[in-house]
């Protein structure tokens, strides 16, 4: 009896337990030997298939490219640096003026400030209740005739300048960190 296709396949795949038996038959049977030879040539054909070259570089899609890293454009970095430098210069130049102005400003004590705020709040409430009692009467906030203690224009500039400097420096620092 000839070898089945299954046994020939298993023999070539090295998946048979009866290697000796199959080989004995192949020695004595030209027909099965020819079938085996056909199957072997198919294996050889499949083995001969060459690898083809990959035209695209898939790996590049996984490696971070420098341009993909969050990097602020050069002009922005430059602007931020210039801004910071300008702010620092301004601070240095303004420092003597600030000291003069600061000495001129009357800085009332915290208690005085609280008292003033309280007074103003009471007046505001009074005005509101007056408005509620007599809505026809023209309403006027009583604040206008009361001078603010430190609301000098110059005094507003100082915190503003300081805040700007911190903002600019902070921005620069954040951008620098993002570069990494």
């Amino acid at each position, binding site marked *: 009896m000839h070898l089945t*296709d*299954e046994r020939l*396949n*298993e023999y070539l*795949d090295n*998946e048979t337990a009866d290697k000796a038996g199959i080989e004995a038959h192949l020695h004595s049977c030209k027909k099965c030997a020819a079938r085996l030879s*056909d*199957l072997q*040539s*198919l*294996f050889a*054909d*499949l*083995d*001969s*298939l*060459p*690898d*083809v*070259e*990959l*035209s*695209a*570089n*898939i*790996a*590049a*899609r*996984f*490696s*971070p490219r420098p341009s993909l890293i969050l990097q602020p454009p050069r002009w922005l970095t430059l602007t931020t640096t210039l801004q910071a430098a300008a702010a620092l210069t301004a601070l240095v130049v303004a420092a003597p003026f600030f000291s003069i102005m600061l000495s001129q400003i009357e800085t009332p004590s915290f208690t005085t400030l609280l008292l003033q705020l309280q007074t103003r709040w009471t007046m505001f409430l009074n005005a509101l209740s007056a408005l509620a009692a007599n809505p026809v009467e023209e309403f006027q906030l009583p604040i206008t005739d009361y001078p603010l203690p430190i609301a000098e224009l110059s005094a507003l500039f100082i915190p503003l300048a300081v805040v700007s400097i911190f903002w600019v420096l902070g921005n620069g620092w954040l951008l620098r960190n993002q570069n990494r």
Partner: protein
Amino acid sequence: MTAPADRDLILRARRGETEAYGELVARHQTNVFNVCYRMLHNRHDAEDLAQEAFIRALDRLHTFDPEREFGPWIRRVATNLCLNHLEAQKPTAPLDEERDEDKTQSPGEQAEVKERSEQIRAALASLPPRYRVVVELRHYQDLSYDEIAKELSLPLSDVKSHLFRARKLLAEKLHAPD
């Protein structure tokens, strides 16, 4: 200095080092692409699915045992993706028109080799996806019957019948008397 082993690259990639994974992809991309190209017989789709295989593998990298070999694993991931891709397609899709034809004609023997490769690829592409995948796993990835059965979640008998029938069909296509 020797190049780091795949194992080291995997460990580094698991810690989030993108460059390490890029290096791993660079090492295996040609092999993985060739798996997909044999399965799909279309360069464009093969590139897409090879990339997809690396994305899937990256997602599952934390479950991968780095003591195992990465190459065989990623090729099996790609094989399964291609099988799913083929099975999701309509069987009547006009695939044949899209398939790559080797239009480049190099002189002499090289042309003959190319022609033969093209015949083999075309014969593979003519097989049903289930047959194609067992041929790929047995002949190009050297898996045993048992390993193929496990990989495809098929009974051993199905693996054998698919493989043997696939070979019969291939032989008919390739060894037909001219």
